[in-house]
């Protein structure tokens, strides 16, 4: 996570009349200190950490609750709020708290808000994945002498792997798509190009920032498609196709 003690961010400085092509395709725009690559790295770093933490928190809880079949009510409730986490309001409310503790604008407020956003889809998909494994299969595994932990990891998890993975994909895409508001909360990241573009009334920056943000979100989706190819054994992928995509 970026160190909050680093020098305060400057604005992107670009001549007003610079053309989009001249700016965006200039090597210096990308590689200079504080250039696009630096912003990209900040964004990727924060989003990765958020997604990883969300997986570490959500998956075990959802898996355990689904295995023991204890959480029907809370799941229904979660479905209805899952699309509705007001990330911007939550992050804003956390800013004074973070400043007061001397932690600066970043990274805690935006980190916590994004984490809340990411937890929900991962939790829901893991829960669905585990609870849709047929009882017969689980009983068969039990009869073969699997322990409960072993049933969870080797049977239920293996069969639900693709659904769990698509939950992580949805979460990661939402995090990447929401992260740019960080630039409007006193931070940086890729959103700074849109912010400074608006601030300086410079469409070159706005459009460039838009392409960067949208491109990263699209790339995130692609990476997960590849990941599914690599991680999931062919049998599980075939099974997933039969089950139909249950991400939504």
């Amino acid at each position, binding site marked *: 996570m970026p160190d909050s003690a680093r020098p*305060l961010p400057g604005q992107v400085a670009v001549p007003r009349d610079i053309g989009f092509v001249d700016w965006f395709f200039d090597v210096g725009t990308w590689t200079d200190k504080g250039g696009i690559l630096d912003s990209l790295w900040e964004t990727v770093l924060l989003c990765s950490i958020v997604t990883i933490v969300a997986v570490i928190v959500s998956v075990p809880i959802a898996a355990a609750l689904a295995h023991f079949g204890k959480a029907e009510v809370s799941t*229904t409730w979660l*479905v*209805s*709020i899952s*699309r*509705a*986490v*007001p*990330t*911007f*309001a*939550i992050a*804003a*409310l956390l*800013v*004074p708290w973070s*400043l*007061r503790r*001397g932690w600066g604008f970043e990274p805690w407020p935006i980190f916590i808000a994004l984490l809340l956003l990411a937890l929900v889809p991962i939790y829901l998909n893991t829960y669905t994945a585990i609870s849709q494994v047929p009882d017969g299969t689980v009983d068969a595994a039990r009869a073969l002498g699997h322990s409960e932990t072993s049933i969870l990891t080797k049977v239920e998890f293996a069969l639900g792997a693709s659904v769990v993975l698509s939950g992580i994909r949805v979460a990661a*895409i*939402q995090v*990447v*798509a*929401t*992260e*740019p*508001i960080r*630039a*409007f*909360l*006193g931070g940086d990241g890729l*959103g700074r190009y*849109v*912010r400074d*573009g*608006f601030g300086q009334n410079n*469409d070159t920056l*706005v*459009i460039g*920032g*838009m392409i960067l*943000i*949208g491109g990263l*979100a699209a790339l995130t*989706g692609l990476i997960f498609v590849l990941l599914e190819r690599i991680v999931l054994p062919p049998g599980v992928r075939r099974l997933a196709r039969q089950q139909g995509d249950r991400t*939504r």
Partner: protein
Amino acid sequence: MSGAALLGEARNPIIRWEWVYEEWDQIREALLEHLELTMLAMALGLVVSTILAAIALRFRWTMTPITATTSLIYTLPSVAMFALLAPVFGNLSRVTAVLPLAAYTLLILVTNIVAGFQSVPQSVRDAADGMGLSPARRVWSVELPLAMPFIMTGIRIATVSTVGLVTVAAIIGQGGLGRLIFNGLRRAFWTPMTVGALLSIILALMLDALILWIGLLLSPWQRRKKAAA
């Protein structure tokens, strides 16, 4: 933003009630604008998704492309969407705010409308035909009421998430309560920010409850059952 000054002002109280009292007009205006943007976006979203859902239900093969397109739109970053439209329609235009907000509702609304109509059993449809109802009449007075719980759930989720997203439209000078949040953040004067953020969350919860209630009124047989999630 300058660092040292900000850290000093970080000690500003989270909320200063005199400000809330004095600036009440500004707060009310922001709240109304928030509500207006939400309703405009929802109205536009509902019209478009009703058409899309009708197409998807009538011509089954269009279902996959429609779902794929609306899913794709849903994953577009909101900051990028506003940034895309701002140069086209102008920074301060309401269209720039409403179009993306409406676009984000499509996935949820289309999915729920389609699921609602698909939940109507074939036997019910046959019974309606057998009683001599015209197709239009059957859709309107038999299928629509039965699909209503799903549709209302979709409207609820879409409304609540739109209320949250409207705040982001503050980056293009719209955004109702989001503007208060911005003002507060920019000046490290926390009162407007706290008021804006809390009110947007309260507004979302209240609309959620209101739509849930309307949904139960529209489908009384659901009252004893859990609403379709």
